[in-house]
């Protein structure tokens, strides 16, 4: 076994992820190769260092105030809930009340906004609803609870494309198959899938508010309301 080959499996060895035969090969190599044994030792030291990285302990007062403060927020939320609900419903009503042809127009505009920037390199995904993996049912629907494209098949293409996180509908996506699944979850896609074939991606650092400027105020509000449903908020 060459050092390069052994080096690429050291973390898997530490995680006990190697099949027995492969493990024996790597261990055999480490017994005769000081450089690779040192590299393994360096990884072990590094992880020990990471494990020892402390979380500064908040003061006892912090913990005394934690639950009361949380309860205060819960009570506040309860008193504000009707207003929030009303605002949400108004947004929904305005979306529903919007003339149907305009809905499609705004949807296309929204998609176009999201289309504008595509990932560099080979991550160009077609919104192929036949091929996209089915999203898993979420256990709950509120913000922050679940991530919706669970267990997307891991493809070779996905492996190649990993490394740059992108956001689709406010959610992190780091491989191609997951991206396809995420796109599939966009409610717009059902309405306009026949007209648009490209993936809708924006960079994490970009701000969709800039792109909203080209829409009318009413259109902006509608789009914002829609995006809010996808866990993105302009606030």
């Amino acid at each position: 076994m060459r050092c390069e080959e052994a080096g690429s499996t050291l973390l898997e060895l530490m995680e006990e992820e190697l099949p027995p035969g492969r493990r024996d090969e790597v261990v055999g190599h480490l017994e005769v190769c000081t450089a690779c044994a040192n590299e393994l030792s360096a990884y072990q030291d590094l992880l020990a260092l990471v494990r020892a990285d402390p979380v500064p302990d908040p003061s006892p007062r912090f913990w005394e105030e934690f639950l009361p403060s949380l309860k205060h927020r819960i009570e506040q939320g309860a008193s504000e809930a009707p207003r929030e609900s009303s605002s949400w419903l108004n947004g929904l009503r305005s979306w529903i009340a919007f003339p149907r042809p305009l809905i499609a127009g705004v949807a296309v505009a929204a998609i176009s906004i999201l289309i504008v920037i595509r990932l560099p390199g080979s991550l160009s995904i077609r919104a192929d609803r036949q091929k996209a993996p089915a999203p898993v049912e979420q256990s709950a629907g509120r913000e922050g609870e679940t991530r919706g494209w669970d267990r997307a098949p891991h493809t070779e293409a996905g492996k190649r494309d990993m490394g740059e996180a992108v956001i689709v509908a406010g959610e992190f996506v780091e491989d191609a198959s997951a991206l396809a699944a995420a796109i599939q979850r966009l409610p717009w896609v059902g309405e306009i899938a026949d007209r648009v074939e490209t993936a809708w991606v924006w960079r994490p650092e970009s701000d969709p508010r800039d792109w909203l400027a080209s829409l009318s105020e009413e259109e902006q509000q509608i789009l914002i309301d829609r995006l809010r449903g996808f866990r993105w908020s302009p606030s």
Partner: protein
Amino acid sequence: MREADFELIDRFLGGDGAAFDELVHRRQREVYNLAYRMTRNAEDARDLSQEAFLQVYRNLNRFDRRSSLSTWLYRIVMNLCLNHLNRGSRSRFPSVNEQVDVADPSEGSLGRLEEKERQEALARAIEALPPQQRASMTLRVHHHLPHGQIAEILGISEATAKVHYFHAVQALRRKLTHWREDG
């Protein structure tokens, strides 16, 4: 633990408000620690951990118990943290409410100073990791979760969770090579 958690949930759903208090008391430190490790900012960690419990309070009746409470809770915390990091977190600064272990110059210990520098270099390297890599590494190294559960929490495949973890460790190794060589 799982049964004890479900018992607490049953009590809460049955109208026992004290059950929620108990749940918070049991979990507040691990939730805060997780949020801190993701944000590396005490104020952000406090806000996000409170927001996480707020969501737990509002949605506990919808928790379907197919996963453990820990998985569900961690998923909430992680989603909040990832959204927060995506929006751009505030710069790191020590809080007045935070007990920071600062090296005492009067001790004049070079070793202690080096240790401090090493911790800061590690903190910077971790902060530079992409959020998903940081998440995978934190859940693996500090919370000792298997890759399958990490995948469930992050909503990704197990293979992807492993790759994130490996990339994170390799990135730290590249950035911190000199420590070991200097040492």
